[in-house]
């Protein structure tokens, strides 16, 4: 048996952060290789610190390893220095637990969390010694599978995969692996790919890209109460991005923001019961020793018992100085109350996402946040002692005018004035500071804006400049995302299989870690597209006809195309749609899916003020979101 961990150890002093590559953490699961039928390697296409922050990875590690016939190990993207070292020494990608070469596993899976990780998937496949294209694989090459939110439009990556799992992986993934194991066991360890594909295609959520393109419906759990959840998660030695306990309190969101892919593809809304969550939190505290717990969801304040949950958690944990963090709060008084409760243990920042500056545009994207309610929230936050806050906005939204851009600056200005006035009344000098973080709108598949092209590069940059000029107040700091990165995201978010050669060329030109600002090689990407005879900007900005077939039409996330179209048309009239938990059914179609419906009857949750930190602008915020459990 080859142990790659032992092979790399003598060279680890040469690379940055060797701890990334070593495993051996608390609660790592090491199963006997021979005791199982199917060995699965989960590849996370980014570095260890990012991958270990993904709750989905942790959940699937539990879901797969709890089954006796299965084994799951982890692998992460080696950083460039480590990749060079592995190539130099002829060491393949390996499982972090056993050190076994990737090629020894029966199945290798990758999560597609965001478009900018695609070249890393290819890097890892290449390091595994597996042919990159599914069509070139045969015989006993490990089965290559994938999952994650990017499957909402799987097509640009489809040809690299043998099978893809749409939707939630807690049941679907281990079920699939058991079939692979049984298949091989029947054939003395050999794999008959065509026969296996036929078996897998019968499973819910499984999409075989080489097969016929019939409609595939996502896998979806009826409820979360019985779903596997890691209560003894791995505790890393090195600092990771989200270095804390994570509890998923709520899945799905029906606020219906029209740009938000997560809000469409994770429906229906399902909650975990408060008592379940409290018990889980207590277990996690005892098994991990973390000093912070994060309650993850797309919109935390929408959990029907969030107030009680936080009060009880704080009461239980404050003696050990364990703080609670809420990543996505809506801009309303209720959220400020929640944040105050959390502050009792450790000081926390406040972040809200108005997304657009003007009322008209907020209505068009169905954010519906009322300016008065927002400013009153700012005042309340100032009264509670916050002297700074972060506000998220998007630029380049469909129908955005220059006045809408100016309105972002104006809203920030108003927030500073409102907050500062309250602070001054309380005798606090210095005033309210606002950091205004602007991302570029990226149209996403399975959303009402899936038909609309992205703003051109010139337009985005012009709007960035305009905003920079409009923001005069020194208490407002402005940051925005790179327009080129957003264009790449847009291309892959709505592209098709014709992008396959571009990805292969980008890989050969050294593109890796494209979501890391300093690693993005723009010229290489430009070359890759030019060689394929494609115009990047034309791809990103293309409007699709409403009745034209879309590359992802066969991928069914429960929300109907008719509903998306209706929402798109309402957005043109700046008409809003209510949240079906608090108003009437909007007819999105997910409740007809037969696997649960939107639950949660607003009690403590507020239905006014419509903003959250959940903006899925597919930038860095999105990259690290840990709420999704699909892989």
């Amino acid at each position, binding site marked *: 048996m080859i142990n790659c961990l032992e092979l790399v150890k003598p060279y680890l002093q040469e690379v940055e952060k060797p701890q990334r590559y070593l495993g051996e953490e608390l609660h790592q699961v090491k199963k006997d290789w021979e005791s199982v039928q199917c060995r699965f390697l989960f590849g996370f296409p980014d570095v260890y610190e990012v991958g270990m922050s993904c709750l989905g990875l942790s959940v699937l590690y539990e879901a797969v390893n709890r089954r006796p016939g299965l084994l799951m190990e982890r692998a992460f993207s080696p950083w460039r220095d480590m990749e060079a070292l592995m190539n130099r020494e002829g060491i393949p990608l390996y499982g972090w637990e056993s050190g076994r070469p990737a090629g020894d596993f029966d199945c290798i899976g990758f999560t597609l969390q965001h478009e900018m990780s695609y070249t890393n998937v290819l890097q890892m496949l290449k390091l595994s010694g597996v042919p990159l294209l599914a069509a070139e694989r045969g015989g006993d090459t490990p089965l290559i599978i994938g999952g994650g939110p990017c499957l909402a439009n799987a097509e640009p990556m489809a040809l690299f995969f043998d099978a893809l799992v749409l939707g939630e992986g807690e049941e679907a993934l281990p079920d699939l692996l058991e079939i692979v194991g049984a298949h091989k066991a029947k054939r003395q360890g050999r794999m008959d790919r065509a026969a296996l594909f036929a078996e897998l295609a019968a499973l819910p959520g499984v999409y075989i890209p080489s097969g016929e393109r019939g409609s595939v419906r996502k896998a979806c759990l009826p409820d979360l109460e019985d779903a596997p959840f890691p209560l003894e998660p791995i505790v890393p030695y090195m600092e990771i991005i989200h270095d804390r306990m994570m509890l998923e309190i709520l899945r799905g969101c029906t606020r219906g923001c029209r740009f938000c892919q997560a809000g469409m593809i994770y429906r229906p809304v399902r909650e975990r019961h408060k008592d379940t969550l409290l018990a889980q939190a207590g277990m996690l505290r005892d098994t991990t*020793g973390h*000093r912070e717990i994060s309650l993850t969801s797309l919109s935390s304040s929408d959990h029907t018992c969030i107030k009680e949950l936080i009060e009880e958690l704080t009461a239980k944990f404050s003696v050990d100085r364990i703080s609670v963090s809420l990543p996505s709060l809506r801009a309303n008084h209720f959220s400020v109350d929640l944040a105050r409760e959390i502050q009792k243990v450790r000081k926390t920042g406040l972040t809200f996402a108005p997304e657009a500056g003007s009322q008209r545009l907020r209505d068009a994207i169905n954010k519906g946040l009322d300016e008065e309610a927002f400013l009153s929230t700012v005042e309340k936050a100032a009264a509670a002692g916050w002297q700074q806050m972060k506000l998220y906005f998007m630029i380049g939204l469909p129908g955005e005018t220059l006045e809408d851009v100016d309105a972002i600056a104006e809203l920030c200005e108003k927030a500073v004035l409102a907050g500062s006035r309250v602070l001054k009344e309380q005798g606090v000098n210095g005033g309210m500071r606002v950091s205004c973080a602007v991302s570029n709108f990226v149209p996403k598949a399975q959303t009402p804006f899936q038909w609309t092209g992205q703003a051109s590069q010139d337009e985005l940059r012009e709007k960035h400049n305009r905003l920079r000029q409009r923001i005069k107040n020194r208490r407002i700091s402005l940051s925005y995302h790179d327009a080129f990165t957003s264009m790449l995201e847009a291309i892959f978010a709505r592209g098709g299989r014709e992008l396959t050669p571009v990805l292969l060329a980008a890989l050969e030109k050294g593109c890796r870690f494209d979501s890391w600002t300093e690693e993005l090689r723009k010229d290489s990407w430009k070359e890759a597209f030019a060689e394929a005879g494609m115009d990047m900007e034309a791809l990103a900005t293309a409007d699709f006809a409403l009745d034209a077939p879309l590359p992802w039409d066969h991928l069914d996330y429960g929300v109907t195309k008719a509903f998306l179209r209706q929402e798109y048309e309402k957005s043109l009239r700046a008409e809003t749609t209510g949240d079906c938990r608090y108003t009437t059914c909007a007819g999105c179609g997910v409740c007809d899916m037969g696997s649960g419906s939107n639950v949660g009857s607003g009690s403590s949750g507020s239905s006014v003020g419509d903003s959250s930190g959940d903006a899925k602008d597919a930038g860095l915020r999105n990259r690290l979101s840990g709420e999704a459990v699909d892989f």
Partner: protein
Amino acid sequence: MKISICYEKTEAGRYLSHLDLARTMERSLRRAKAPLAFSEGFNPHVRMAFASALAVGVTGRREYVDVELAGRVHIPSFSRALQEAFPSALAFVVADEIQGGGKALSAIINIAVYRIGFTLPPKELEKVRAGVEAVLSADELWRKPKQKPGKKTIPAKEVRGLIRRLVLLSEEEAGQETIVERMGMLPDEKKIFLLEAELLMKADGQLRPQELWEMIASAGGFEAVQTLSVSRQALLILQDGKCFSPMEGVLV
């Protein structure tokens, strides 16, 4: 109640930075249900003090941390709990209460014993011996000033005075070391050697094992190849010409 804990930073923990180690220690203490004491303020932290930070890539056979507790613990049962709570990067050695107004370990520990493991073709051994000889017989050894862009220059320093003892261990002694596990990786024509160095730790300066290794190489006229392993064997207290271990009852 204040306690001192003696632990090992194992081979599995070799690449932990001091911050990683501190985080791992705090989590272990929490899992062991230690009644921790916290600092005041917006961002409360655990009151613990390490005797001496250990560099990335260096293991430690006897390391120490002082921890302040908000309540009392029964040392034997607490020790068992901590032993169980440690991940593989740490190994529990012993814990004891700090009586009265005992000084912080970091203030009284002043000697570190290091072992440096390296591989060289056997014919190079004479050069290492010569290098060790030259270092030991020198009256003064000056460390070059260090200049990093944007940072204050670290002035040159005489470091011979920091070296109390330096020996090249015999092959037999070296053979007992854990690095032998790596022998499989060694080409046949090379052998493992070990240097042991006792270094004074002073408030105004310490000599890092890597620096010492480079000095020996330069004095002996051989290339300072990448070391195989560096391990801190002991932290000691030198007082009135006598050396003793920081925690009574612990054999070093």
